[in-house]
Each structure stands twice: as structure tokens, then as C-alpha cells.
């Protein structure tokens, strides 16, 4: 008797975690991602205590092979490749996560409001979404890149700092990458809001906010999580495209994307310079997708047994 009562006290998150732990691919992906995060964070002790600098050039040591001090050798300007991969990874991962989080959250918000309230609100929000879909990516990026930030109220210091390229890219990605999630969420919300469990919550006096948070969001979690993980991978790739075009993360600040595009000129002479960032992007995207699969089954109680 008392045993069953304590079992009843286990919360839904604990149950989800238990289910997730049983998913081997998901757990492996989680471990890989944790390892990647530790890897990119290892740049800090190397910079602080090892006295290394990712931007320090040494033109007498161009394309040096790996040695005890520089495990992965040096690039075309004699910079340490390992450290640049770590620092670049910080930026790439952060762009991937922040861009997805900001854009995805916006997409979920637009989609859930359009689907739940319907009518004129739906029409308005969806026409807005259609408009965004119709905007071509590259001209938008070029226009965004040409905006003089000091004219729209940012300080001169910020506008000329290295961080501005990072924030610009996050904003651009958030602007272009929310529409697919918004449509997905809208469709799922419309189907859910007529279900009896939503109606019985309404009959008990539940407001729109409660219904969305307690019934709609948990029930659309599965497709949204999958969409998010796919987006993270795409955003990391998009970052490399944009960096290649000279927009966003500007060298010498490294990112996996610009290291990869940088290396393509030298792919015959120094293929390793392209392989390392390419491999890291590949591993990250795959791990994120497997993590998404694991989360999907953890959130779906029916996946058990």
C-alpha cells in the first residue's frame, strides 16, 4: 500500500528521464553532445593557463604538421588548428542553439496563437508568415548586413565590436527560420483544440494560457522537438553559408563554417583543415538528430512497452 503511494509521487519529468535513459542512441547522442560542449569549453583553460591565442599568427610555421604543442598542427597563417576548432565550435554551437531557440520560440508562439484563436487572428498571423516565406534569403541577408547599427540606436562600441557579427547572424537566422515551425504548430494546435480533453478543461474554466501550456504544448512537443533538432543542424550549416558570404562571423574570429569555407582554397594542399570542421559539423548534426529521436520517444508515453 505505502509502496504504491510513493510511486504515485514520481513526477512526469522523472518518468520521461527514465524512458529517455533506455534509448541507447539518444543517450549516446547526449554523451557526444556533452563531449562536444566540453571540447569547445576546453579553449578557456588553454587560453588562460596555456597562454595560447586562437588568432596569433606565425607565418614561419604555416601548415606545420601536428607536434606536441599543436596537436592538430597549424593552418595557413600558422594558427593553432585545435584551438581554433574549439573557439569556432563555441560560436557555431551557440549560433545553432540561439538561432533555433529564438526563431523556434517565435514560431511556436505565432503558430499556437493562430491555431488556438483562429478567425481573424489566424488570418493575420498566417498572411504575415506567408510574407516571410516569400522573402528571399540572400537579399534579406545583404540588406541586414548593410544596416548601420549606430543609426538605429546601438552604441558605436557595440556596432564595431566583434560580437556584432554574432548577434546579427542570430537575428537573421531567427527571422528566416521560424516559419516552418509556425505552420507545423498551427496545424497541430487546430487539431488539438477540438479534442475532448481540451474541451473538458475549458468546461472547468481553463483560460487560453493554461490550455496552451498544459494541453497543447505537451501534445505538440513531439513534432516540435523533431523540427527543432532538424533546425539546429540546418542553422549550423546556414551559419557557414553566411560566413562564407562574408556576412556574420567574420575572420579572424573562427567558426566551423568559416573555417570550412576558408579551407576550400587549400583542399589539395591541406585537406585536414577542411576535414576537421566538416567532421565536427557532421557529428553535431547527427548527434542532435539522434537526441531529437530520443526525446521524441521519451515524451510519448505510448512508445513504452
Amino acid at each position, binding site marked *: 500500500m505505502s509502496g*504504491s*503511494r510513493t510511486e504515485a509521487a514520481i513526477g512526469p519529468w522523472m518518468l520521461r528521464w527514465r524512458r529517455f535513459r533506455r534509448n541507447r542512441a539518444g543517450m549516446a547522442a547526449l554523451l557526444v553532445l556533452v563531449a562536444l560542449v566540453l571540447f569547445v569549453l576546453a579553449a578557456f583553460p588553454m587560453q588562460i593557463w596555456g597562454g595560447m591565442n586562437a588568432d596569433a599568427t606565425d607565418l614561419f610555421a604555416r601548415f606545420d604538421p601536428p607536434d606536441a604543442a599543436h596537436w592538430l598542427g597549424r593552418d595557413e597563417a600558422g594558427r593553432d588548428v585545435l584551438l581554433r576548432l574549439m573557439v569556432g565550435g563555441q560560436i557555431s554551437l551557440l549560433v545553432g542553439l540561439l538561432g533555433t531557440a529564438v526563431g523556434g520560440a517565435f514560431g511556436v508562439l505565432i503558430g499556437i496563437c493562430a491555431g488556438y484563436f483562429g478567425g481573424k487572428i489566424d488570418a493575420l498571423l498566417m498572411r504575415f508568415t506567408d510574407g516571410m516565406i516569400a522573402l528571399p534569403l540572400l537579399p534579406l541577408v545583404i540588406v541586414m548586413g548593410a544596416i548601420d547599427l549606430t543609426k538605429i540606436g546601438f552604441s558605436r562600441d557595440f556596432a564595431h565590436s566583434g560580437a556584432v557579427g554574432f548577434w546579427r547572424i542570430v537575428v537573421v537566422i531567427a527571422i528566416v527560420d521560424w516559419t516552418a515551425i509556425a505552420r507545423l504548430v498551427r496545424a497541430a494546435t487546430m487539431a488539438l483544440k477540438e479534442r475532448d480533453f481540451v*474541451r473538458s478543461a475549458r*468546461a*472547468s*474554466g*481553463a483560460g487560453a494560457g493554461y490550455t496552451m501550456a498544459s494541453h497543447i504544448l*505537451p501534445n505538440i512537443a513531439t513534432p516540435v522537438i523533431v523540427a527543432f533538432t532538424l533546425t539546429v543542424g540546418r542553422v549550423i550549416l546556414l551559419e557557414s553559408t553566411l560566413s562564407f558570404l562574408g556576412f556574420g562571423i567574420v575572420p579572424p574570429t573562427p567558426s566551423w563554417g568559416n573555417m570550412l569555407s576558408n579551407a576550400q582554397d587549400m583542399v589539395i594542399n591541406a585537406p585536414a583543415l577542411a576535414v576537421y570542421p566538416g567532421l565536427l559539423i557532421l557529428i553535431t548534426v547527427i548527434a542532435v538528430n539522434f537526441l531529437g529521436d530520443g526525446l521524441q520517444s521519451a515524451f510519448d*508515453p505510448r512508445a513504452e512497452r
Partner: protein
Amino acid sequence: MSDLFSLDNVSVQFKVGRKILRAVDRVSLAIAEGETLALVGESGSGKSTLGNVVAGLQVPTEGTLAFKGRKLDRASWPVARRAIQIVFQDPFGALDPRMPVSDIIAEPLRIQGTANAAERAARAAELIEQVGLPVDALNRYPHEFSGGQRQRIAIARALAPRPQLIVADEPLSALDVSIQSQVLNLMKDLQAAHSLSYLFISHDLAVVNHLVDRIAVLYLGRLVEVGPRAELFAGPAHPYTRALLASVPRIGARRSRGRAIVGEMPSPLAPPPGCVFHPRCPLAQDICRTEVPMLAPLAARAGEAACHFRDQVA
């Protein structure tokens, strides 16, 4: 017995394209405290819409609602809502698949903010036993239960805020016959234990016969007959009620104890003039085609019927 919930001249209209669909047309009805009132009719008769009106899911286009004699408006709805809960037909759609049973049962308390987490857990444990499920069911998810068990969970959920009226929208029709009687008995027991009123929406007259005190018959959104169960079953006053009773299959009885109804229910988009039942009525006269019969008390027995010949046909 005083009125717990009453509807006065309630209509619900939907716009379908340019036309107006009258799902419920000028219905006046009262549910007494502790009473079980059945709402019967064919599909499309507006009985679910009327149930939604009582449960607060559908705002009537016209007419007024009153709870315990107090007219319901924006200010008084939240209070009445606590006292009125709904149980749906489909036990597979009525429970959120992503919520553990403990949260589902305690949800009305959470929405209304009347109990903290510990009180809600205690109430859920108390209710799960009342509906005859083991305590460890609380920790599980809806998909682990059968239809009958789910309906028990839905009933436990409805009981959580200690309601006075439960709208049961065909709660048995999705269940196996063997399970139906179990759930039916549970509903009866709970009624006795908690002095509940039920608005029991059904198209199954055999089930209705086991549970209810009074019956209201709905046809094309209009109330055609209201009366105590025994009297109504013994001597239906409206020809539609009679046809409905005659259509109940009985084991051992010869077929066609009366004439079953012919034809289909007309579209509520274009209801016939006069009495809405006249195109299918075996007794229809000229007056039925022009004048709408009002619901009026019967001469011979308790009850009301909306028929020009209500006192002659019995």
C-alpha cells in the same frame, strides 16, 4: 426538489455559409437537485449542443440560463462552473495522453486554484478508489487503460471539484455492453453518495430506463416531450416519442409494436414549417403544417408535450 439548473427559451444558432442552422430552438428545461434528466433524440437533434450549453462550452444565441435560481452571466459563470462538470462520449479523446492520471483527475482543482499540490494528490487518490481503480493507476498514463477504465477516470475527474451537476454526453455508447452496465452502476452509486444531478444525454432508451427520473425528448433542436420516466414509457404523448419507443429492439417481442418512424430527419438548415415533425408524423393534419405546437402540460398525466393532439393520441 428545487431547480438546480434551468434553461429559459434557449436557442443556439450557427452560421453555415449564408444560412442559419438552428441547433437548439427555444428550449426551456429545468434540472432539479438530485435528479437525473435524460436528453434523448436522434443524432443531429441538438442534444449534444444543449449539453454543451449547460456545461458552459457553448454560449446560447438567445435565452437565459440560471443556476440555483440565479441568472448566469459573465460574473456568476465561474462559480457555477465549479458545480457543473462534463463527461464525454469518447473515453479515448477525453483524457490528455500526455498527462498522468493523477494530474488528469486533479485538473479541475488546479484550474480553479482551490487546492494546493498535496491536497490535489490526496483528492485524486480518494477519487480513484471511489471509481473502483487501484491507487497505482494514478501514476500511469491514459493509454494503459481500457475504454471502461478510462471512462471511470473521466468520471473521477468530473467529481474532483465536488460538483452538483454532471453533464454526461453519451458516456456509455462507446463502451462494450458488458462494461456499460458496470459504469452505469458506478454512476448510480456515485449519485447516491454525492447527491449529484445528472444531465444524461443518450440515444439509447434501454440505458435511459435504468438510470433516469425524467426524460426530455429533442427533435430537430426542439423539445417535443418532457415527462417522468415511468409515465413517458407507459404512455408517450408525442407521436415522435411513441415511434422512438417502438423502435427499441426487444428480445422475444414481435417486431413492429407500432409504426417505426419513416424517412430521415429534415435538415436543421431548412426546418419544415409548423410542427417540425409533421413530414414524418402518421397523425399529421392541416394544422400541423402551419402552426407550431407549444410545449404544454398534458391533461391525463404528469408531463408536457408539444403536439396539437397531445391529449388524443395516447
